[in-house]
């Protein structure tokens, strides 16, 4: 079973790299959804700890949310916003992938340094940290509001895998509360994107720069 889990980890890392170079917004949404689904079924394959029924139930909820509900919400936001269908990165794609690779190397180093409990699945800690870094990369170097939400989701995926790696058992109620929060977060952000596109005729967050203490913006004119 673990070989399969390890394959999935490799898959997650590959998807991080793919996210760094994908230019199409809808592909990005699909990639993030796929990554969420793959991460969601990971605990079933690693198969430890929790009773199987609970784990299966949980995986089902996660797969539905991350695989169906979130992409649907985001696709809808993308269509309604009438934005350009590419991600418009601030840095070039080669630079993105270099950063992503660098993040992966740094995470491997960190993973080996942290006094974490021994994991049964190889590479799970570096993969999770690299995913978190990729999320930050998406948030900081892409200009669209949707890609920032995607970045947030990628970070969430990374943290989820990280939690699996550490075997931290959260009680059911807490996990449900966390999932609910993430769901509402994406929902609220989706609404916000809709409003942004209506107010500004675009969802380019680089234009969200009126509020500042520096001489630009409202008072500087």
């Amino acid at each position, binding site marked *: 079973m673990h070989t399969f889990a390890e394959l999935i980890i490799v898959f997650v890392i590959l998807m991080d790299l793919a996210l760094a170079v994908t230019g199409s917004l809808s592909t990005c949404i699909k990639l993030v959804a796929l990554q969420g689904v793959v991460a969601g079924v990971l605990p079933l394959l690693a198969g430890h700890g929790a009773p199987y029924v609970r784990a299966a139930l949980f995986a089902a909820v996660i797969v539905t949310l991350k695989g169906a509900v979130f992409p649907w919400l985001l696709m809808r936001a993308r269509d309604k916003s009438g934005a350009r269908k590419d991600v418009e990165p601030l840095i070039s794609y080669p630079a993105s992938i270099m950063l992503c690779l660098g993040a992966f190397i740094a995470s491997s180093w960190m993973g080996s340094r942290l006094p974490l409990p021994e994991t049964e699945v190889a590479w799970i800690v570096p993969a999770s940290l690299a995913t978190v870094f990729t999320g930050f990369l998406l948030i900081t170097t892409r200009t669209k509001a949707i890609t920032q939400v995607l970045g947030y989701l990628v970070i969430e995926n990374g943290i989820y895998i990280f939690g699996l790696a550490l075997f931290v*058992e959260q009680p059911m*109620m807490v996990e449900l509360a966390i999932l609910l929060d993430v769901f509402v977060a994406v929902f609220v952000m989706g609404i*916000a994107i809709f409003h942004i596109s209506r107010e500004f005729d675009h969802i380019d967050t680089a234009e969200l720069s009126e509020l500042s203490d520096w001489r630009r913006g409202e008072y500087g004119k």
Partner: protein
Amino acid sequence: MIMLMMLLPLAAGALAFMITGDRPRRALLLWTARLHSLLTALAVWDHAAGGAVSGFISGGAPFRTAPPGAAAWFSFDPLGLFFIAITSSLFLGASHYAVSYLAAEKLGPGEKADGAFVFNNEPETVFTGCLLLFLAAMTAVTASRHMGMLWASVEATTLLSAPLIYFHRHKRSLEATWKYLLICSVGIALALMGNLFLGAAGLKTGAGLDLDTLLIKAALLNKPLLKAAFLFLFVGYGTKMGLSPFHTWLPDAHSEAPAVVSALLSGALLNCAFLGILRVNAVCAAAGLADFTGGILVLFGLFSILTAALFMLGQRDYKRMLAYSSIEHMGIVAIGAGLGGAAVFGALLGALCHSLTKAGLFFTSGVILAAEKTKRIADVRGLWRRAPSTAALWLGGFFLITGTPPSGIFLAKFIVLREAVSLKHYGLAAAYLAFLAILFAGMTRVFISMTFGEHTPKPDEKPFEEPAGLLAPAAFFFGCVILLGLYIPGWLAELMRAAAQNIGGKL
């Protein structure tokens, strides 16, 4: 009782979305706030009256209503009780303000509130509903006894307050809302990572994330992982608390939200995030890492005060100025918590007085905005001629917030300073005083120039009638702060001492 305190605003919030009539909805808001503060007062009274209970607390075991042995998700220890007391009284004032405010907004829909934009307001149902749910989430934050539940509640406060910031539906408030949502959500995601590290630190001992178990087993936790947990949780909750350099969302959100929301964000929400840091700090202190965590708290606290001081000079927007002053005070309470000992008491007193004063100031700033239709400091002159009571409150609030005696804030700042000196951190004490002096100078310029001077009427200016309903809560809060500076009632002092002991302070 705790369940009731959470379910009441929750149910009322859900109900508010359904009520179409303005009057019953506003009455619902008002009475929920009143009932909630009554319940809080009962809980505090229960704590104060139960001598046996407080003896139990000083032994390190927290106050809980559930039978011992059964893990309670929610219960109030003195620290949680102290913070819910702040939150609830603040919400009480805010609800009274909000009712008058919403009535006034209704009269002039789409009115130019800031001179530049025509915009529509959010439906009042959404606003009131989110306001009440926000209260429920904050109650959950203060009562959480499980780090995971605490995290979920803090994230819930972010999501529920985002629609509140976007009450005035125009570009600038949307920008502020987006930044707030994204920066805080990502910050809080890091806190989730911190929770995982915390869980990993106690994996061998089976401590889990239950706060009480963690405190008992603190000495057995894996130290390096605990340090990592603290760092992540500190950055996560520190973002929400507005500590520099993670504060970037704060001035935008505070300046663009309606005054009542700014008051709640600044007075209640920042404290809730601070509580998150205090909780993990208590665990670290119990594990013998107080020097490490204290150092970080002091460092970032001081940096926050410096940031606030720098941005205070040359500030052009008076609501932003108040926001930076909030960053300053969060810095002060962080330093207090970091120094430990008697300073923890100062930090708690500072948190209480800052909440009341800042809420009062934001309420007053809302009235000024209504009178002058601008947030630019340079465009407000001679306020005392146009709105004398508002001007008096504005100036009074200035003296209170900068810590002029007999303000309670003076006492708090002084206790922190005294502890810094007695611990022989002279450099820290000197920097602290210097930054506070810069802040005082910067704020003096703003408040004096706005209050005094000649008022030049704008072309289409009508005489301004000062709304008593909007000013009364501010006046009440200011009165409380002065009282706290002169005399701290026995039961409050007792509660604060017990709360300080909860997080490793002494007095």
